[in-house]
């Protein structure tokens, strides 16, 4: 048992599985029948151009949006049938960071800890460690409304980590984070996955995803156009390129490389 949670699920079961996941907005299919398979203990980088459906997918997986069709399995559970059981094992840093702006940083962590039912001493110790790690100790008593963008990201990430979840959903966690904090967070996430935790991350910073991810999924216009281990995908078809080349190849952006705006030159 970890934090009162059942951990009897086999460690070889996937952390996330979706089958024909669909999410539509009127007649627009933002997510168009994707089959995700995220192994447990993996660092899964979920990539895609702007508007490809990354955030919509993550919202469906975290219960912020109900899917229009298909199945989802998170840590062996159906989030639509057992939403609370899933949420107890999951930490999320969503697009809007989900912060109550008028709480202080420390209060934010304590609030999350109390909602998860963590013992008071544990909340105190974990909060202190997370605030130190994120270099937020001096700002712990300030309201989140006064935080910079990077500080907000860090406190949102701390709040997601505090309950020691078994699966982390991170929507653009490195955007707006300084180099020092970014390095600390990367190191922290590596040790988290090494300990059996799973990270599902979206990011536009391909270099970071390439360094961290053990597995990658690429979504384009709502469809999954690539999925597998990072090493396999990069070398597939005799390719020995970078993640950027793979990404551009799969989303069909190569043709626009030489695009020129005559009036700009």
């Amino acid at each position, binding site marked *: 048992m970890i934090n009162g949670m059942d951990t009897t699920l086999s460690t070889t079961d996937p952390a996330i599985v979706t089958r024909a996941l669909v999410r539509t*907005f*009127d007649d*627009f299919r933002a997510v168009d029948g994707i089959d995700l398979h995220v192994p447990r203990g993996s660092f899964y980088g979920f990539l895609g151009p702007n508007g490809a459906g990354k955030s919509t997918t993550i919202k469906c997986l*975290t*219960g*912020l*949006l109900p899917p229009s069709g298909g199945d989802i399995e998170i840590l062996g559970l159906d989030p639509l049938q057992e*939403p*609370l059981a899933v*949420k*107890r094992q999951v930490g*999320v840093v*969503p*697009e*809007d*960071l*989900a*912060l*109550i*702006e*008028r*709480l*202080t*940083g*420390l*209060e934010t962590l*304590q*609030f*999350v800890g*109390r*909602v*998860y*039912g963590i013992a008071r001493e544990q909340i*105190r110790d974990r909060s202190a460690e997370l605030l130190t790690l994120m270099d937020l*100790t*001096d*700002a*712990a*008593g*300030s*309201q989140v*409304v*006064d*935080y*910079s963008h990077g*500080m907000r990201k860090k406190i949102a990430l701390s709040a997601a980590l505090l309950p020691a979840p078994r699966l982390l959903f991170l929507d653009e966690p490195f955007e707006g984070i300084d180099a020092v904090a970014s390095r600390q967070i990367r190191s922290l996430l590596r040790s988290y996955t090494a300990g059996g935790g799973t990270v599902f991350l979206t990011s536009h910073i391909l270099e970071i995803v390439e360094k961290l991810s053990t597995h990658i999924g690429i979504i384009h216009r709502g469809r999954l156009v690539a999925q597998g281990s990072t090493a396999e995908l990069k070398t597939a078809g005799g390719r020995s390129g970078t993640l950027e080349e793979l990404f551009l190849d799969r989303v069909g952006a190569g043709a626009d490389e030489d695009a020129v705006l005559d009036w700009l030159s």
Partner: protein
Amino acid sequence: MLRLAAAWAWMRWRLAVNSLSRRRRNDGIETASRILAILVPVLFILITLPIAAGLGLGGLFLGKNLFEGREMQDTATIVTRLVLAAVTVAMLIAPVLRSGFGAGVTINRLVLMPVSRHALHLQQIVSACTDPWLLGIVPALVLLPAGVAASGRPGAAGVLLLCGALTVMCLALIGSVAASGAALLFRRRQRAELISLILILAITFAAFLPPFFADRAEDRDTEVEFSLKVTALKSIPFWTRALPSENYAGVVSDLVQTGGSRATAGVAVLVVAVALLYLLSLAIFQRRLLIPETGGGARGSRTGEPYWLQLPLVSPTVAAMGQAWFRAYTRTIRGKVAWIAPPLFLVVINLLWSRNLMDVLPGSMVIYKGPMLAQFGILLTFLTLNPILLNQFAVDAGGLSASFVLPVSRLQVLRGKQITLAMMAAPVVAANIALAALLGRDGPLLAWITVPLNAVAVFAVLGIFGANLSVLLPRAADLNSIGNASNPHPLSNFVGTVVTALLVAPGAALGIIGWRGLPGWTPMALLLIWIMLAFFVARYLERITMELLDKRRENLLALARGK
């Protein structure tokens, strides 16, 4: 300049049109809600138009008859003084109400564009000219000289027309100074919040001033009093001529009395006033552009361990949510007002009671002052809490997303909200009861016991009713704004206010007058029935809220993200 004005007008037009168009994540209720919200300014315009037309026709009539005798001249002086003074006050206050921390985003965007600061300043003045208060008097300022011209005095009409144009410019510049000044004052979050708090209390209490200045009933001699006030309004003291509104009225009076020599001096004063106000407005505007808005800075603010209560009868999760939101709301302007204003209102009402209120009650009617004040305190408590209560799912921004990603059920979220609102209302109701007991130590004990029981019954229904309204008609609100930006949806606000009054009334009536002519236990039994009924209704409404939350979760989340 014209290019900028056209681009600005086009942007405002597109914003209005786009706010009505249906987006992917909007449902029918949200589209209707947006249309209803737009209808309020349209209604305002529809009300303003006949007033402006009436003022214009009045101006035409006064102009035609201005030189027909002393009485007409006095009427013109009094009307122009009162109307222009009201517009001056509106031009000073309206920009302050519209501003607040974060209100300068649009101007900051324009500063990044290749537009000179002078052009931006002129654009601000033009915007002030389109203020409905100012537009409302333009017909009168044009038709008054037209009337004078029609009476065969084109020279005087020309002077009045010029004077009117200069007065409009002065008022627009006053609006511009007020807007830039407010933006300068509000550029730091903490200071903006403090000023906003003071302003919102000052403006609210200003509404009570007229009854204070009214004479006591026993001292009142209506005819003599009215005649004195009219005499005072007829003569314009020299020192008030510095005000554009007074100067305009002075020019009207001078034109009739001296035939133009003093009126020309008045016009010259207005020209100087326009020049000075323009320079002042430009200086403040440029300073405003130089100093960006800032938060308070987050570093160096380590504090001790926050204290969390273990609340009885609720789960630790609900208690945590209730306390988190309680802290969040009470740190906003609206949250602070909800705590500070009701007891202050009660003191003011007590003062009014001792001066005027007893006059309007029938002589045979005996009212216990203390219990009545306490019941009134309940009404005040909930009315000041309504901006939060009626919009409880739309005032959290990202906090709403938190409640959907954390392991909490919708029922726990709903109960957490009710705990928060109860924690905010209960101390205020208690303070009001204590204050009422100090101010009026009368009435039987049972009348006093009625007060907290009535508050419980009102809250049981109103809290859940507000949750329903909030889910049906959510409006992204900034609880730190003092203007319309902190209000719930207009329809929700109206319905919520009426329902609040209706909910307070039965218990209050039982408490205040129910003890007469009935056996002692009857009012208490009726009150207990009322409380049971309230809890029954609340339980039913809770089920509706849960269903609505399910259906409208996406809309609420989109709203939380500002979409």
